[in-house]
């Protein structure tokens, strides 16, 4: 047994070395950076160890704005996108005609480039010197007051941001939920029909528990993905997110490292560690809730 144990480790060695080198070491390094005060990028020396980086980041208004933006995006887009995806998947599952056509239509955004889609959204929503943009024209057509969604008030920008995020993450969720619904054995529904179960009750007591593992997977990955949002913001509002007031935590990390005000790996690391702590907490809460509600 001892010999085969050594053999086992030998087989694992390549993976361990690679993972250790490119994942574990950088991870540890992030923690180290975040604790080194006054780190100099050029000389690679620090003045001391402490929590100053954290207190700086937590007092930085740009960071606080980024945290606020990130939380708003997470809280709005994760439930809404999952809910919409479930509704669309249920609808797709209940039609027979043109089902494949609609499945393709709903999946198309997934294979489209984020930046290209962002550009289209920008054109739809932006107000320029020459035109108010299609969405504003539509709003005005119905007697509403137009607003510049890209360079206008905060809520308008946030609306476009959430709309866009939901639209981008929807196709994958629809795909997963459609297949989850299709894999529920028809006999359960037949049994429920024989017993005179109402549609609402079938959905609550049978469909939802049956697809709960998939739903849970989508919620967890949705939370994590939304907390790590960055590229979608860039696609809509350009790289200077702080000025637009639409920065996210990951965007803040990037700015601290490479942005025009960059060159502060310690602040970036501290922000990254804070993001890690937030995501970890949320995921743990998710897992605890799921234990009672998810049926494998």
């Amino acid at each position, binding site marked *: 047994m001892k010999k085969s144990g050594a053999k086992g480790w030998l087989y694992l060695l390549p993976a361990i070395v690679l993972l250790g080198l490119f994942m574990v070491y950088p991870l540890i390094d992030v923690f180290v950076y975040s604790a080194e005060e006054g780190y100099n990028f050029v000389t690679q020396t620090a003045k001391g160890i402490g929590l100053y980086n954290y207190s700086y980041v937590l007092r930085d208004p740009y960071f606080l704005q980024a945290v606020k933006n990130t939380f708003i995006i997470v809280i709005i887009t994760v439930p809404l996108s999952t809910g919409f995806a479930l509704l669309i998947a249920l609808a797709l599952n209940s039609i027979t005609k043109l089902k494949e056509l609609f499945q393709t239509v709903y999946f198309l955004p997934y294979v489209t480039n984020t930046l290209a889609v962002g550009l289209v959204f920008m054109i739809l929503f932006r107000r320029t010197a020459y035109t108010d943009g299609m969405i504003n024209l539509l709003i005005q057509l119905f007697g509403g007051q137009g607003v510049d969604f890209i360079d206008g008030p905060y809520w308008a920008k946030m609306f476009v941001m959430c709309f866009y995020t939901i639209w981008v993450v929807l196709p994958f969720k629809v795909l997963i939920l459609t297949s989850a619904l299709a894999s529920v054995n028809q*006999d359960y529904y037949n049994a429920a029909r*024989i017993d*005179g179960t109402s549609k609402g*009750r079938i959905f609550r*007591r049978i469909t939802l528990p049956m697809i709960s593992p998939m739903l849970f997977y989508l919620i967890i990955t949705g939370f994590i993905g939304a907390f790590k949002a960055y590229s979608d913001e860039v696609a809509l509002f350009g790289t200077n997110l702080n000025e637009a007031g639409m920065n996210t935590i990951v965007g803040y990390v990037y700015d601290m490292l490479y942005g025009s005000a960059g060159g502060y790996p310690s602040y970036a690391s501290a922000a990254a560690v804070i993001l890690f702590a937030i995501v970890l907490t949320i995921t743990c809460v998710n897992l605890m809730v799921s234990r009672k509600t998810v*049926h494998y």
Partner: protein
Amino acid sequence: MKVVLKNLTKRFPNRNKKIGGEVIAVDNFDFEIPDGKLIGLLGPSGCGKSTALNLISGLLEPTEGQIFFGEDEVTKLPPENRGVGLVFQNYALYPHMTVLQNIMFPLQNLKGDKKLPKEEIVRRAKEAAHLVQIDQLLERKPAEMSGGQQQRVAIARALVKMPKVLLLDEPLSNLDARLRLQTREEIRRIQKETGITTIFVTHDQEEAMSISDLIVVMKDGAVHQIAPPQEVYDDPVDLFVAKFLGTPAINVFRGEAKGGRLLLAGEAVLDIPGVKDGPLAVGIRPEGFKPDPQGPLAVSLRNVEVMGRDTSVVFDHPAAESENPRAIVASDERPAGHEKTIRFRLDPKKVHLFDPETEKRIRPEG
């Protein structure tokens, strides 16, 4: 509650669009299932048994014909208003609910003035669980139980709302041989205790024979014979029924009627008064061969299989259509095994004659 089927027909469009047309799954069912009996719908795979059951349950709508429960027509009623309990082949127990929750589920669906208080639901669920003897398992999840236990839960769930008719779709096919024997007696017991008219579907003739009050033998969507088990075995209406029932299977020979006598390979073996001269398909049950040194039927012995209580004699005969013609004889009459030919006398009650074209039964006089 008796169940009456009138000209019940179900046609499906053919899946294979190139061939087109329709598949007749249930062809003009027209019979009555008496109240409080256990009925076996028996037939080979794909003969429309489950379709027939689904028509009675209401999961499928018939193309033509009517269904009555007692005096009331239920043809157009949705399944929930028919008062049927259905046990699925794979049980279809909700995997995320405990046994008790599964059994309570149909009662919790009741609405309006039929709505029951919580305690009553629990009491009735426990009563149903007691009937199928799973009182100890109420808190288990379906995945934590054996197939036989799951089967019982499924039956309890179907019984708990006191259905007028209980339907079982291949209830024993997922169980191992031993459990199958036990469970089929269990089904019989539960049916007797509750007195609910029960219809079950099976392709296993032994299963159907052992517990049914009446057997409905079907093939390709059509009913061939409806009779008590012994009668279906002793007095089959056609060659299909004769071949389908009985283990070992009936032996089929090419025969000929000539002057009121049955000829097998030219030799007269039995008197069959009143049968017109001409070719015949002859079915002889394995127990219809009686060893007799003076018997008219001579066969060449191939093999003797000892089975304890009796002995199985496999033989060759020029007129045999069955691949392994077989006689079952009492152990004390068995041939030693080294004879080249042995002779049998035939028991006329075990010899059935059929028209070789239509496969319909031909009965000698007297």
